[in-house]
């Protein structure tokens, strides 16, 4: 089974790190990004050099994670695309569904 690190943030996002992919990543850009000035510093490396939470999840969820998205963006550019941040937006989905049913478009569908 694929090893994953999954946790939730105060802003309602879910951060999921595919640790299998991290094994092939030299940069661990997510950890570096998280530890820059003004960032949350919630990610560190474990004894095997893999990303881990250095704070307990309750603190992360109470705002220790600053929801800065830097881990995902830097992982995408300099890492192994192992980290995904998702935010549920149910009413946006409903809006888009209604548009589709009406045959209307939004610019990014064109």
């Amino acid at each position: 089974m694929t090893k994953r690190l999954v946790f939730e943030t105060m802003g309602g996002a879910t951060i999921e790190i595919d640790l299998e992919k991290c094994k092939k990543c030299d940069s661990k850009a997510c950890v570096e990004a998280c530890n820059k000035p003004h960032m949350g510093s919630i990610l560190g490396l474990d004894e095997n050099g893999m990303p881990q939470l250095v704070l307990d999840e309750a603190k992360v969820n109470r705002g220790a994670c600053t929801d800065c998205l830097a881990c995902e963006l830097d992982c995408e550019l300099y890492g192994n695309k192992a980290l995904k941040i998702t935010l549920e937006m149910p009413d946006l989905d409903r809006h888009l569904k209604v548009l589709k049913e009406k045959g209307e478009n939004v610019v990014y569908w064109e």
Partner: protein
Amino acid sequence: MARLLEYEGKELFSKANINIPQGKATDNLKEAQKIAEEIGYPVMVKAQIYQGNRGKIGAIKSAKDPGELQQVVTNLLDSKIGSLNVDKILIEKKMLFEKEFYLGITSNPATRQPALIFSDAGGMDIEELAQSQPEKIITQSIDISEGLYDYQARDALRKCSTVKNKELVRTADIASKLYRIYRENDCKLVEINPLVVDEDGNIIAADARVDIDDDAVWRNPDLGLASAEEAGDRPATYLETEAGRIDEGDHRGSAHFVQIDPDGSYAKEIGKISIGYNTVGTGCGLTLLDEVVPLGYYPVNFCDTSGNPTSLKMYAATKIIFSQPIIKGYIFVTGVAAQLLDNTARGIIKALKELYPDTGGKPNIPCVFVFRGRSDDIALKLFEEHGISDSPMVKMMGRKATERDAARAFDDLYKQWISG
């Protein structure tokens, strides 16, 4: 807009032991017929929309028998009154009444206190009445540390010479109950217009208006309202309710989004081009409006993302703005901001990358991004690193740019895009 429909307001009234007419809300003819049979004809059929003066605009009709009811309900349900869809109707027993009062509790910004407002000229628009016959309106401030006791309400109503004896006592009792509804539900306004006195002397709330403080919606989940910015008399759109969620449970910075022209019809009517709009700081937003509108563009939304919002908030706001179906461009400008603009940029970049996965985040409409303030250099660099700055549809600007520069840059970009 955090406002209850009439039938929802009446449910609150009923729970507080304020008399309401017999009736029930429905969204179909079959149930409407059943309700009418139960309460007996004649009945009133009332469109449940966020609109005052419904009687004058054909949103309230009476039906004396099943045939008339079928006709009225068929015409009203799923129709459009102004720009509002009628999804629900309230079927109520038609009442005969002898008097109509106005009774309301509202927040008075001048005194910073709630105020009891009463008039014996109910059924009329209270704002109109305040202009034409101000002497007909009684107002009394309420000390929130005391509340509104029955005797205080009675004292207030005694100023009106036409309300006496049992009527006075019963109306004062309703005023106290109305005040409790106002306080317990964080209301801005609770209004009964008209409050009627029937043939038997019963006092009944024939209508209900309940407006909740937008910032307190989250404290009142039982009301079932979505958090959304004030948007006039129309209900919030899905995009607005989604935007209303951005700040829920997360105090770090804010995102205020409202659709000024949800279907773009107004922009079209005045011959302007619809654009998406986001600024850091409302003042900056207004200054930019002064520059873009004369050039022929009309922001169909207003959005202010300031107070150092998280990147995640910026991401959500950007996705929402781009999901408006009629925009032909997008402008993002920060005032000279103290907030971390690199975080602001990250949110926008993630949104663009998700919206435009095939181009790595390069948009297909003209977009101007102006970053001015703390970490603006990092913000601009991030757009470069992610390969968005070099898009032909994108113009990046830094702290030397003014709102006028931003508007002109957008105009140039738009003209290039249109010419092809």
